[in-house]
């Protein structure tokens, strides 16, 4: 955690020699704390101080990267307990588990599905992140073959799951060219597992048994054996226990700056869940409550799509709504006789409306009013989507020269604006459209 100016001051030579360009050591310390100066500007600072400041500058939760080809999952480096305090930065990676006891064709099919799954939402591409391969057979060669099968089907980030260091070493060879997460070092195998991970320079997950002191010591041991990139599985399962321990870990890292547990976590949403729906609930909790990696067993589109949507929601910056640029958008090559619709520049609103117009097949002009990134009703209630703003958008867009009619369709929810708008836009006819975007295609069908 960052040190305060006063804490830094105590580490400086305190001679006020001014060689750093500041009048006093205290002034320099304040600049350092505010990140307006570099430590190297002071020529007399001790090695010990340098080390202390470097350690303090490290993020309280280490950033861990797992990758394959151009695909990369980065988790950790979070700075707050609640998203409203700032934002959450690194969305958890969603991995789908296969077991080396499954037929090879099935494994390949799952890997290919994970790779190809994708969906557009609010202008963003959402997808799954990788495959977790479990050595359920307990046999080293089956495990290696399964990893090879996954690799042959898709170039995806991997989590390799085995407690046998020998099997892990063989699997890592098959995963060559990727940077997988090695899962897991335990009390029983950590020496050998850490050696295997260190050799491959791969991040290593440590699995505890519910006791956080033991988990911290295990993580320290692994670190001592040369593995810096660590992921934590505290070893608890179930909704209540997982919530408690993930909260404790996040607090320990952020509030106590406990380095030994300053790592992202991994959650197995399917463990202990009695159905796909229950697993989805557990995964939802993990998304909102601090997981770094989430492993799914039932990854059907009907559960993955809601989970990806939840992840998108929770990881949106609360300070700025996702927005599109205001202006005139052409959908399905509109002609002079095509209808003109107006809405706000909140991405969710824009994509709801644009998606329906596009899907309808009818050409239309869509005018996006600058409503400071708010939805129709929110903007209306905040005075950011009123007759004045809409008429300004109409006039500024040059639409009048592109169409041969003077009809403007407004969202059904703001029907009350029509009177004022007719005053602001003389000669225009204001049409009240449907309330919900889903009803736009039917509306356009009868639009004249």
């Amino acid at each position, binding site marked *: 955690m960052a040190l305060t100016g006063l804490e830094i001051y105590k580490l400086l030579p305190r001679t006020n020699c001014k060689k750093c360009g500041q009048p006093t050591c205290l002034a320099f310390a304040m600049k350092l704390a505010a990140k307006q100066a570099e430590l190297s500007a002071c020529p007399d600072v001790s090695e010990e101080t340098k080390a202390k400041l470097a350690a303090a500058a490290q993020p309280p939760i280490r950033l861990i990267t797992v990758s394959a080809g151009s695909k990369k999952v980065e988790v950790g480096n979070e700075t707050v307990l609640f998203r409203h305090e700032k934002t959450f930065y690194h969305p958890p990676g969603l991995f789908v588990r296969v077991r080396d006891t499954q037929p090879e064709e099935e494994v390949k099919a799952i890997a290919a599905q994970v790779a190809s799954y994708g969906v557009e939402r609010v202008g963003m591409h959402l997808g799954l992140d990788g495959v977790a391969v479990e050595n359920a057979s307990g046999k080293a060669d089956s495990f290696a073959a399964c990893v090879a099968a996954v690799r042959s089907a898709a170039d995806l980030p991997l989590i390799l799951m085995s407690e046998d260091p020998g099997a892990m070493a063989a699997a890592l060879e098959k995963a060559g060219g990727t940077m997988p997460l090695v899962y897991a070092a335990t009390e029983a195998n950590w020496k050998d597992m850490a050696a295997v991970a260190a050799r491959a320079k791969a991040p290593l997950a440590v699995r505890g048994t519910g006791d956080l002191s033991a988990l911290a010591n295990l993580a*320290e041991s692994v670190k001592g054996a040369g593995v810096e990139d660590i992921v934590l599985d505290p070893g608890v399962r179930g*909704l*209540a226990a997982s919530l408690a321990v993930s909260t404790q870990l996040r607090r320990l890292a952020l509030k106590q700056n406990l380095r030994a547990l300053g790592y992202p976590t991994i959650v197995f949403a399917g463990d202990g869940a009695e159905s*796909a*729906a229950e697993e989805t609930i557990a995964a939802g909790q993990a998304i909102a409550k601090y997981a770094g990696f989430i492993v799914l067993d039932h990854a*059907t589109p009907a559960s993955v799509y809601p989970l990806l949507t939840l992840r998108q929601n*929770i990881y949106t910056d609360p300070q700025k709504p996702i927005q599109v640029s205001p202006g005139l958008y052409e959908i399905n090559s509109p002609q002079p006789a095509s209808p003109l619709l107006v809405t706000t520049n909140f991405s*969710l609103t824009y994509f709801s409306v644009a998606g329906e117009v596009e899907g309808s097949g009818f050409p239309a002009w869509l005018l996006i009013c600058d409503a400071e990134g708010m939805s129709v009703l929110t903007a209306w209630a905040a005075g950011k989507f009123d007759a004045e703003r809409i008429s300004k958008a109409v006039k500024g867009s040059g639409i009048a020269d592109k169409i041969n009619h003077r009809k403007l369709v407004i969202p059904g929810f703001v029907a009350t604006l029509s009177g004022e708008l007719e005053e602001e836009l003389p000669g225009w006819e204001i049409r009240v459209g449907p309330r919900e975007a889903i009803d736009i295609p039917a509306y356009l069908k009868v639009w004249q």
Partner: protein
Amino acid sequence: MPVTVNIPREKWTGAIREITIGATSAEGGTRSRRVTVGGETTLPFLHFEGQIPHPPVIAVEVQDRYPQDWSPLLLEAWGDVLQSPTAWAQKAEALGADLIALSLKSASPDGGNTGAAEARETVQSVLKATGLPLIVYGPGQAEKDNEVLVAAAEVAKGERIALGNCEDKNYRTIVAAALAHGHLVIARSPIDVNLAKQLNILISDMRLEMDRVLMDPTTGALGYGLEYTYSVMERLRLAALTGDSMTQQPMICTVGEEAWRAKETKVNVGVPEAWGDWRERSVNWEVLTATTLIEAGADIVVLRHPESIALVRAAIDRLMTA
């Protein structure tokens, strides 16, 4: 040197108020049981840190007219009972509801425009049909809300029902009705800590005891503003636990209504294949909205789909077993 981890426990100074809905014969009502929510002395389900004396509860939405604008999935799941609020409420009770949230939609000016007389009759018949405590919602238009909620309050005297929604523009009449007939109110404000607080203050200024006020922060569904509701609820809960008295009301979220407005649940034509099976996706949509908000502090969730009731119930049970 071995590391010893001290489990971090916050010392909260505030608690959520305990609120009881419904009255049995012992309290002068006719309900077969009462439902108490609130009382938490820590953040949701952090059993290691404080008390969670009452689990969150599930209210099931029942309307007083056939909900023809609902998703076909809901119409199919409920079947014929949707024709009658009493049969509907009974089925909801059989499916494990803790509360019935009766919505007097037929009073809406553009959907029947029924009045006080019909409201009285509906509330009375639903009270007879089920032993569960009741929430009664007006159609959401200030004038009509006043008309039908006052009627509901009169006819349900002694039953300790919850009247919704009190908003800044119409809280006076509804609070007065609650005061006169011994009911509770639901104070709804648009996703804003200060507005929620302000409305609670206005209501408390009318001398309604604060253990008769539930607070609705306004729900955005998954993909449709969920993150705003989620964060405002976390902020309200943090304010309550750090001692801000006017934020210490249990929270109610109208999950079903919002989740089933989403395109993802409403339709299945022309939607991407990546959305998956319609029914499974839709139930997940409602359930994930519910469980996410329950973990942000919701004490009551109002649900629509029968399967969601069972799934959310199971999740609550698991969250309550420390």
